[in-house]
C-alpha cells in the first residue's frame, strides 16, 4: 500500500540507541562520518568497525536492514572501486591488456569501499532508530544558536515536519489522479523517456494545484489554532539530556581518541614488536 511508505525506514524496537536523544545520534553520526576520513590505516578502520558493530548490536535492528541501504549505492561503490583500482599510478601488480592494477590502487580501492560502506551503514543506523519527527526536533534544537544570525530555524524545522506529514497524503493523491487519468485512457507506460516524461504533465498539474490548495487550507487551520511562529511556543515533548546521553557522548569521545591513537600508535607498536622479535 502506498500509504504505508514512510521516509527513512524507521525500525521500531526497544533499545538504548532508540531511546537516546536525537541530538546525540545526529552528532555521533556526523562525528562518525568525519572520523572515517580522519582515521588512518587498517587499525583506525578496525576501531571504527568495532564501534559500528557495538552500536548495531545495541540498536537491536537486524543487520539485513542496514544492508538494504547498501543496495542503493552498490553501483556507485563499484564505479569507485574500478576507477581506483585501475587508474591509480604506482607499483604495478597485475597487468591485463592495457589495464594495470597497482598496489596503491588496490589499497585505495579497499579503503574507499570500507569508508563508503561504513558511512552508509552508520547513517542508516541513525535513520532506523530515530523517527523523522525526533530528527526534526533534534535539528531544531541543535541549530538554535543560528537564530542569532537570523536563520529561521523553527520555520525550517516546521516545514520539514509538515513535508514529512504530507508525503503519504500526496502519494495517495498521486495514486488517485493517476487512476483517474488512466480511466480516461492516459498512457504512462509506453514510449521512450521523453514521451514518458511528457505523459506525466497531466499527472503533475492537478497534483500541484491540489498541493497548493492543501497548503492554503493548512495555513488557515494553523492560524485558527493560534500558530504564530516559534516565539513563546512551548514544547509538548521537549528534549532533555539524560544520563545515558552523557554516557553516549563520553563513549563517542573515547572512540575518537582510540581511533586516532590506533591509527598512529599501532603501526609503531607492531614494528617495535617485530624488531624485538
Amino acid at each position, binding site marked *: 500500500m502506498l500509504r504505508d511508505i514512510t521516509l527513512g525506514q524507521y525500525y521500531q524496537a526497544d533499545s538504548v540507541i532508540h531511546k537516546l536523544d536525537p541530538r546525540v545520534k545526529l552528532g555521533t553520526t556526523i562525528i562518525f562520518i568525519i572520523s572515517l576520513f580522519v582515521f588512518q590505516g587498517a587499525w583506525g578502520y578496525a576501531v571504527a568497525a568495532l564501534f559500528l558493530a557495538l552500536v548495531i548490536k545495541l540498536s537491536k535492528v537486524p543487520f539485513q536492514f542496514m544492508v538494504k541501504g547498501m543496495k542503493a549505492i552498490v553501483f556507485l561503490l563499484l564505479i569507485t572501486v574500478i576507477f581506483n583500482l585501475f587508474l591509480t599510478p604506482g607499483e604495478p601488480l597485475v597487468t591485463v591488456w592495457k589495464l594495470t592494477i597497482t598496489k596503491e590502487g588496490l589499497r585505495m580501492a579497499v579503503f574507499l569501499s570500507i569508508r563508503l560502506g561504513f558511512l552508509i551503514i552508520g547513517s542508516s543506523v541513525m535513520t532506523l532508530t530515530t523517527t523523522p519527527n525526533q530528527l526534526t526536533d533534534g535539528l531544531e534544537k541543535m541549530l538554535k544558536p543560528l537564530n542569532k544570525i537570523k536563520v529561521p530555524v523553527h520555520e525550517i524545522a516546521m516545514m520539514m515536519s509538515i513535508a514529512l506529514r504530507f508525503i503519504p497524503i500526496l502519494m495517495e493523491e498521486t495514486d488517485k489522479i493517476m487512476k483517474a487519468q488512466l480511466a480516461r485512457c492516459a498512457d504512462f507506460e509506453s514510449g521512450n523517456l521523453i514521451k514518458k516524461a511528457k505523459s506525466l504533465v497531466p499527472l503533475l498539474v492537478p497534483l500541484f494545484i491540489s498541493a497548493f490548495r492543501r497548503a492554503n487550507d493548512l495555513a488557515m487551520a494553523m492560524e485558527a489554532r493560534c500558530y504564530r511562529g516559534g516565539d513563546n511556543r512551548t*514544547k509538548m515533548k521537549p528534549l532533555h539530556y539524560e544520563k545515558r546521553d552523557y554516557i553516549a557522548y563520553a563513549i563517542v569521545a573515547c572512540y575518537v581518541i582510540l581511533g586516532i591513537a590506533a591509527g598512529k600508535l599501532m603501526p609503531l607498536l607492531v614494528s617495535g614488536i617485530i624488531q624485538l622479535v
Partner: protein
Amino acid sequence: MDIINIKDLIFEYIRRDEEGNVEGVTTAVDDVSLDVKQGDFVAILGHNGSGKSTLAKHMNAILYPTEGTVWVDGKDTQKDEYVWDIRQTAGMVFQNPDNQIIGQIVEEDVGFGPENMGVPTEEIWERVEESLKAVGMYEFRKFSPNKLSGGQKQRVSIAGVIAMHPKCIILDEPTAMLDPKGRKEVIRAVRALNDVERITVILITHYMEEVIYADKVYVMDKGKVTLQGTPREVFSEVERLKELRLDVPQVTLLAHELRKEGFPIPKGILTKEEFREALDSCIKEML
C-alpha cells in the same frame, strides 16, 4: 453577555478575471445579525454558496467584516490585539480532516494548539489526554493520522480544538467529506461536548439530520438569513426549505406529505419516535 454577537455583517469580495481586472463584487454575507448564547448548540444551514462558511470564518477572525461588527466574547474581531484571544475562545474545525492535522502522531497534533499558546509541558499532556478522552480517541493517541478513518481524523481535529480550552467551537461542515458512519461519530462527539462540557457549538452543515438536536437553527440563502428558530419551527416550513434546495429529513417529509393529504399529524415532526406516536394517535382517532 452572549458569546458571539454579529451585527449587520456584510462581507464582500472582489471577483477578478485572469488578468486581475475587477469583474464585479460578490456579497457573500449580506446584512446578517445573530447572537449566540453561551452553552447553546446553534446550527447554520444552507446550500453551497449560501455564505454559511464565510459567516463562520468571521467568528474566528479569519475573515474581517466589510461592514458591520462581530464580537466574540465581547471582543471586536477587527481589533488586532484581540486576534489570538478570539482564536482561542472560538476554536474552528474545518471541512477536510487531512488539511488541518499538523502532527504526525495523534497526540502531537492535539498538543499543537496548546504549544502555540505557550502552555507548560505538563499541562499540555493533561489537556491532550482529557480532550482525546472527550472525543473517544484516547486509545488511538500513538497512531499516525494517516491510519485513521475520516470520522476518526475529524474527531482528532475536534480534540485539537478542545485542548485549547475554547468557550465555543465552530464546525465548518465537519461531516461533508465523511461517510454516514463517520458523520454519526462526529455528530455524537459534538453533542457530547455540548451536553457534558457545556461548550457552545456552532455547527455549519447542509445535512438536515444533524441539526435536529440544535437549540436554534439559522437557514441561509444568498448571504441572508432566511429562516430561523428551533428545529421544529424551521422544519415546519417544508415547502420553503424545498425552495431553498435543502433536503428535509425523510420522517419530516413523510409527515408533511401525510398532513397535506389531510391526516391529522402535527407540524414539524423531527424523529422516528415522534412520528410513530403521531401516527399511533392519528390511527386511534380515525378508528
